[in-house]
């Protein structure tokens, strides 16, 4: 996972990720696990206004026990105030954002491209190729791929923009 993909997976600009790593003293790690924790951290920081460090602590505590409904509710002593996280909704939105990141809709890279030319999958990713489509295609047989191409080509040929 690249920085851009991680940023997309957590719905934040890359700069936020870099700042969060620095403030939280985290080694840069672009993994799904890290993305999940930072995604919840950002939700808590942005929507409730929790300071970043506190949001991160709460996110880690919450995600340590994903199947325990009780861990997604944090109450103040005496039960005066509570933070309740909709576990299913958070995880569903995270799945959607992870998919978007992998499909090539990651935050656009800025600045000069790296000097060392990338090859293969890395080059395709950088180019914006949707690797999820390639992976789907690889699951099909050659015959199925060609059959779909034929069907879709016939359909594409039938398309006609109506005169206005």
């Amino acid at each position: 996972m690249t920085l851009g993909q991680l940023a997309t997976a957590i719905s934040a600009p890359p700069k936020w990720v870099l700042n969060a790593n620095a403030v939280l003293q985290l080694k840069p790690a672009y993994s799904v696990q890290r993305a999940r924790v930072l995604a919840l951290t950002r939700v808590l920081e942005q929507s409730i206004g929790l300071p970043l460090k506190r949001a991160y602590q709460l996110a880690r505590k919450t995600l340590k026990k994903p199947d325990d409904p009780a861990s997604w509710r944090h109450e103040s002593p005496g039960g005066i105030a509570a933070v309740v996280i909709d576990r299913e909704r958070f995880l569903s939105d995270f799945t959607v954002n992870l998919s978007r990141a992998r499909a090539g809709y990651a935050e656009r890279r800025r600045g000069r491209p790296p000097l060392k030319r990338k090859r293969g999958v890395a080059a395709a990713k950088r180019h914006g190729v949707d690797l999820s489509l390639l992976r789907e295609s690889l699951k099909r047989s050659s015959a199925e791929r060609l059959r779909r191409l034929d069907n879709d080509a016939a359909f594409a040929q039938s398309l006609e923009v109506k005169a206005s």
Partner: protein
Amino acid sequence: MSLLSMLEGLAAADIEFVVIGGVAARAHGSPRITEDLDICYSTATDNLDRLAALLAEWNAYPRGVEPGLPFIMDRRTLTTNPIITLTTDEGALDLFDVVEGVGDFKAVRRASVSVDGGAVQFLALDLPGLVKAKKAAGRPKDLDQVPELEALIELRRKKR
């Protein structure tokens, strides 16, 4: 399972949408092959409900992630996620509530043209709109296609 069956399904379910991306470019004359259908959809509540129901019927699931992850296909997911990339029983479908470079659904609809797909009629983003969208997306593969789309604009103009 095909681009045509997805379009027919969307039309039959009375979904308000405009085709963008590769299928729209193809409709205008681009020779490029595309595997997925990209649409911009109206965010009116009833349209979101119909779209969510149809996608649930199609067993829509986020593309490129491990199977079995939590995913709720409902109106709220459409409302809170501006871009959703899905695999469905009918094919690969990408949903956009806004097209960068063009605007929200109303703006995209204003910049659309009617397309006769034989078995189905639908709206597709026009060529100038596609060029704006590709430039705004800014990925190398999008920028790659801009010269071809601009050439199509010129050729269509000369044809008249």
